């Protein structure tokens, strides 16, 4: 029997103790088990959008997103299997097919989480047809650039803006394949009244959709920033 608020589960055969209400992803992380994810970021709320952190839970034919599924006692989780690899690979291909992701002309080339995952999962071509509409690049801000052509809609930028910076200058407009990141009322970034130019959005962007102009992306990206600020707050 476990004590109050503590559950025991198995992740990839390893016995793990977790707090009630904790997610599978967070329990796995503590046990040193890495689960791939694009939208999840330490320090931010879970979004459950990218579907790369899907895991198998014994007794259910469904796959569960590890970042939003709470642990339960006696749960047996598998984070890596041929089935999961197959699904994750397809998800990456679908992400790549939705926008003109051309690494050679992308500022994030070599510092891109999507590219890293594509390489890790052996995505060397797309089995689905590429389909996208060309989007306007917002160059109106004095140093921040928003290129919706590279965006995977992970919403890290809007969560870091809302939850860490406390502004919510960014959001998503429309829906489905028309979805796009916007600033204020779909304004040009340069004329935004709420943006504080803190560049946290550029720091956490997993791809090259938001970046700091004329600076090497390896210097401007820092995805630990959300957790850093969250943990060291005085209140």
């Amino acid at each position, binding site marked *: 029997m476990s004590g109050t608020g503590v559950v025991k589960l198995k992740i990839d055969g390893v016995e793990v103790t977790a707090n009630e209400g904790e997610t599978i992803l967070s329990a796995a992380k503590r046990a040193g088990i890495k689960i791939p994810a694009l939208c999840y970021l330490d320090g931010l709320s879970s979004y459950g959008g990218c579907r790369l952190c899907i895991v198998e839970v014994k007794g259910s034919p469904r796959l569960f997103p590890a970042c939003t599924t709470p642990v339960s006692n006696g749960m047996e989780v598998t984070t890596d299997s041929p089935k999961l690899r197959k699904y994750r690979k397809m998800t990456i291909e679908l992400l790549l097919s939705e926008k003109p992701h051309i690494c050679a002309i992308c500022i994030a080339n070599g510092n891109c989480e999507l590219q890293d995952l594509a390489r890790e999962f052996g995505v060397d071509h797309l089995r689905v047809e590429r389909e996208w509409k060309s989007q306007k690049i917002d160059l109106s801000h004095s140093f921040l650039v928003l290129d919706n052509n590279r965006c995977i809609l992970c919403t890290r930028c*809007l969560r870091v803006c809302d939850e860490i910076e406390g502004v919510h200058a960014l959001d998503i407009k429309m829906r489905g394949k028309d979805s796009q990141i916007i600033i204020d*009322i779909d304004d040009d970034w340069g004329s935004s009244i709420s943006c504080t130019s803190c560049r946290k959005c550029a720091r956490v962007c997993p791809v090259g959709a938001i970046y700091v102009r004329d600076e090497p992306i390896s210097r401007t990206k820092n995805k630990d920033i959300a957790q850093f600020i969250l943990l060291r707050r005085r209140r």
Partner: protein
Amino acid sequence: MSSEDRRLQMLERIMREHGYDKSALLEILHMAHELYGYFDKNLLNYISSRLNLPPSHVYGVASFYNLFKFRRPGEHVISACMGTACYVKGVEEIVSAIEREFNIKRGGSSPDGRISLFITRCIGACAMAPNITIDGEVIGRATKEAVLERIRKVLGGGVVEAR
């Protein structure tokens, strides 16, 4: 008092009735859309400031819904049902005919702002397919000729028979 002031006053009253509650955003957007017929940035900015919500959030919610318009609709509104039954029964041909005849594009308005042409999802009158709605009046088993004539009549200002 101008109609602009009156509409704003009504919108303000509705927001007050909701206690300027942030979670009543969608309800308030509905009422604002009913009053104005479409959203422009000033209106959304106004709602955002009265409810103390981030402008991007208000825009994000408003733009999520297909039925909210972001451009001023024309004087007369034509909507074509693109449900499966209407599509099979040839509504596409009627829509193209309207586009050609009145020099408009689906989703847009004529240059003089007199008519708009919208595409809708299934309106639930499949037995009467194809369906075209002109200013709220549904024309069932529509033909190209009948629809074009009705639009000409509406635009000509002639009296349209009661439904």
